[in-house]
């Protein structure tokens, strides 16, 4: 269970997260929506340790994450797929995937091989292009690669930042349904950030609406989809 | 508040500060014996070179490890003009400023394309290569031997005014007005609009270029101004007696950078402080080693060790130098 309580993250002059509290159920998808600049990426980056919060707490089961380093957080089972298809374009596809599991190469070499095989089965196109530089992939393939890099670490909590950014609706629906299946089959907990609420909320258990660094709605996903007045006020559609 | 008004106020302030510096050094020299008077002359000369770094690094963020080579350009220009064309020393100094500014223009054309570490390395190569030109073309630059040049004699009107003037006093009287003028010029420059432009480029090139500042031109102008100062310093420095490759070694470039860093790369007061430190520190250390009767192997290298440590400590403890530390203390007192 992920418990975020009274989280505040500040940049020079602005409070990007202003007293945020919510919970995400284990084995489920929790979707975070909000307009540009609402603080969605900052929320994920604070959970994964890339940004230091000014105050508040982030608890992943019994572990407090706020005082740990990024590396330690990742090693305790939290993986983030950052915004914008973050892969290392000069490295090959296979190297990008290898990178994701590198930290557990010593303890779990066998499982790492299985995990690598699994992501190649999930995204066969990556296997075909494994020797090519990641920079030569299309946007959708890069997103698949970024997710694969996170998955080989065998995370228990996956933080996905706008996986459908810049992708055709069909491909983004495909990616989201793969994530959904993973959740159901492996008990993975997912925090999914999206601009386009409908597909993301359809698979989610719970929806959180952020505006100007505050939680303005925290509802079961179905209710959030139905509440058109709320969406119109904060998202404009 | 209008721009014109700010400018006037600042012009007044820089005039006052330059005069205070001038008078302060003069008063100090009256308390000193000949050796320390000569050291004061060194301070006045090297201050000009240190200011050239403060201007360059502090105002634009660019770093040059080759200010000594530019000093050599100034020194050789003045020495050649005086020995070959037999023009007056004062005129030669002024012409040396122009020659080194021109040199700075070429350097700036290259530097405009370079950022931090590239520029540092390139200027370091330059610091090594330029003195070797004098050896390569030794019929023109007279090789290792160099040119013997000096400040000559004080004019009659000055001796009539002040009475007997020693060599040490005269070298101070030659260097000090130039130092005060340079101080005035740098103080003014860094507070005008162009000074603000330079700092914008230093802090964020992308933002500055979006604000319509021509980055390349700005960098070139900074280099020209800085080289003009360094060239002047080099000319005065050489006329203490000798203009030769050995007078402008790479270590001189590094020493000047140290002075600028110790004082705080952005502060002109810091430049003055740093110059005092590099000139007087070896003397102080010599006294200490004599007092403690340290072996010679240690005492030779102690000044270099102290200067290296000072450089490191400054950067680690307070990258803004002693000026930054002072500000910090003052700030605390207010609260």
């Amino acid at each position: 269970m992920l418990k975020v309580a009274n989280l505040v993250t500040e940049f020079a002059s602005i409070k990007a997260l202003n007293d945020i509290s919510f919970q995400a159920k284990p084995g489920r998808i929790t979707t975070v929506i909000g307009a540009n600049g609402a603080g969605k990426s900052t929320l994920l980056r604070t959970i994964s340790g890339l940004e230091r919060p000014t105050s508040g707490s982030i608890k992943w089961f019994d572990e407090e994450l706020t005082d740990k380093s990024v590396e330690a957080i990742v090693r305790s089972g939290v993986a983030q797929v950052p915004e914008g298809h973050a892969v290392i374009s000069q490295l090959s596809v296979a190297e990008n995937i290898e990178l994701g599991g590198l930290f557990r190469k010593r303890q779990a070499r066998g499982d790492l091989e299985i995990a690598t095989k699994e992501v190649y089965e999930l995204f066969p196109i990556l296997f075909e292009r494994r020797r090519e530089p990641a920079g030569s992939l299309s946007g959708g393939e890069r997103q698949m690669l970024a997710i694969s890099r996170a998955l080989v670490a065998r995370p228990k909590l996956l933080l996905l930042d706008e996986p459908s950014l810049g992708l055709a609706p069909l491909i983004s629906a495909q990616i989201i349904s793969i994530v959904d299946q993973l959740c159901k089959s492996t008990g993975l907990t997912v925090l999914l950030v999206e601009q386009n609420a409908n597909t993301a909320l359809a698979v989610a258990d719970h929806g959180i609406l952020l505006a100007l660094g505050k939680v303005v709605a925290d509802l079961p996903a179905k209710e959030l989809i139905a509440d058109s007045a709320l969406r119109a006020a904060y998202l404009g559609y | 508040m209008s721009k014109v008004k700010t400018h006037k106020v600042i012009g007044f302030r820089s005039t006052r500060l330059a005069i205070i510096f001038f008078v302060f050094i003069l008063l100090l020299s009256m308390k000193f014996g000949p050796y320390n008077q000569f050291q004061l002359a060194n301070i006045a000369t090297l201050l000009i070179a240190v200011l050239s770094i403060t201007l360059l690094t502090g105002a634009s963020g660019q770093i040059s490890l080759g200010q000594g080579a530019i000093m050599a350009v100034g020194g050789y220009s003045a020495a050649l003009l005086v020995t070959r064309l037999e023009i007056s020393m004062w005129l030669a100094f002024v012409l040396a400023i122009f020659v080194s500014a021109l040199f700075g223009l070429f350097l700036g054309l290259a530097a405009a394309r370079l950022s931090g570490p590239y520029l540092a390395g390139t200027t370091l190569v330059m610091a090594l290569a330029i003195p070797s030109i004098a050896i390569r073309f030794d019929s023109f630059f007279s090789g290792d031997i160099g040119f013997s040049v000096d400040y000559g004699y004080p004019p009659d009107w000055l001796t009539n005014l002040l009475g007997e003037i020693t060599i040490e006093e005269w070298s101070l009287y030659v260097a000090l007005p130039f130092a005060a003028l340079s101080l005035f010029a740098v103080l003014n420059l860094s507070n005008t609009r162009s000074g603000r432009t330079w700092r914008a480029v230093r802090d964020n090139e992308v933002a500055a270029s979006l604000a319509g500042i021509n980055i390349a031109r700005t960098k070139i102008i900074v280099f020209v101004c800085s080289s003009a100062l360094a060239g002047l310093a080099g000319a005065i420095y050489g006329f203490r007696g000798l203009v030769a490759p050995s007078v402008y070694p790479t270590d001189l470039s590094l020493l000047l950078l140290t002075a600028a860093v110790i004082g705080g790369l952005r502060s002109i007061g810091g430049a003055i402080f740093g110059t005092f430190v590099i000139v007087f520190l070896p003397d102080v250390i010599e006294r200490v080693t004599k007092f403690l009767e340290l072996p010679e192997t240690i005492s030779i290298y102690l000044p270099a060790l102290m200067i290296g440590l000072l450089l490191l400590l400054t950067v680690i403890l307070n990258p803004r130098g002693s000026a930054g530390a002072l500000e910090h203390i003052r700030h605390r007192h207010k609260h």
Partner: protein
Amino acid sequence: MNSFLTAFFAGTSQGAIYALVSLGLVLVWRGAGVVNFAQMGQAMFTTYIASQLIQNEYSYWSAFVIALISGALLGALVDLGIMRPLSSRKNSQLLNSQSMRTTVPVIASLGILGVLKALAGIFWAGEERGFPAPVPTTGLRLGNSDLAITGFDLFVIGVVFLALVLTTIFFTRTGMGLAMRASALNPEVTRLSGIRVGSVRTLSWAISGTASSLAGLLVTPKTNLSPNTLDLLLIIGFTAAVVGGLTSLAGSVLGGFILGYVIAFVNVYSAPENVFLAILIFLLLALFLRPQGILGSKEVRRV
């Protein structure tokens, strides 16, 4: 013909040494964003350590190995003791400005250089001394004719070749090598992969320290050893790195060999006193004609 061969072999063996120096510079520049002007000061120091050991009757090879290990330790120490604390001072006002972030480590490295030189002077009296070579430095003979290459030249080329092969294997075949490449290219994604980027950075300082320490051991039998002897090597290595592309490891090695040939041919066909000037001209030409270097990538180098 004979002078051509002399220049060619001298260029190859000197170029091999320059390649090591330039490789060391590029490793730290890519891995930590610092051009380490103290690099050859570190190498000078470890060569003195080796020289001291040999004086104390240690064998050449044990001194050789200890010098390489001290090179690695010194490199790591520079990072842990000075560069890392510097880069973690994010809120320091001076480091907030873009250009100063690269300038301040350069200044720190100059301070380290000064301290190392002064310490070497104090410990080892600072006078020039010779440094032994494990094989003869006289010209080889084949039958009756003198060859233009010495046994030591061959030794240098062999050792550097071995070092370069090992480095290549390390970077392309091992997980640690992958982690180092990744953290140089994109530290954020690398950290999100659970890799301790700080330790990886320290490792690149250590490898760079070892490479330059090796360069020091290989060059001093010809140049002798004093606190200042290796300064020139830094200048040449920097030029080689820029020529090859400051961001490319392969480019840095290539640049080293190019510089080796340029300097050897200037030495043989022109005069030794032209070498400095040749380096400066070559550097300026490289910067004007191909600022990203021969193998450097354009987008990485922000001008």
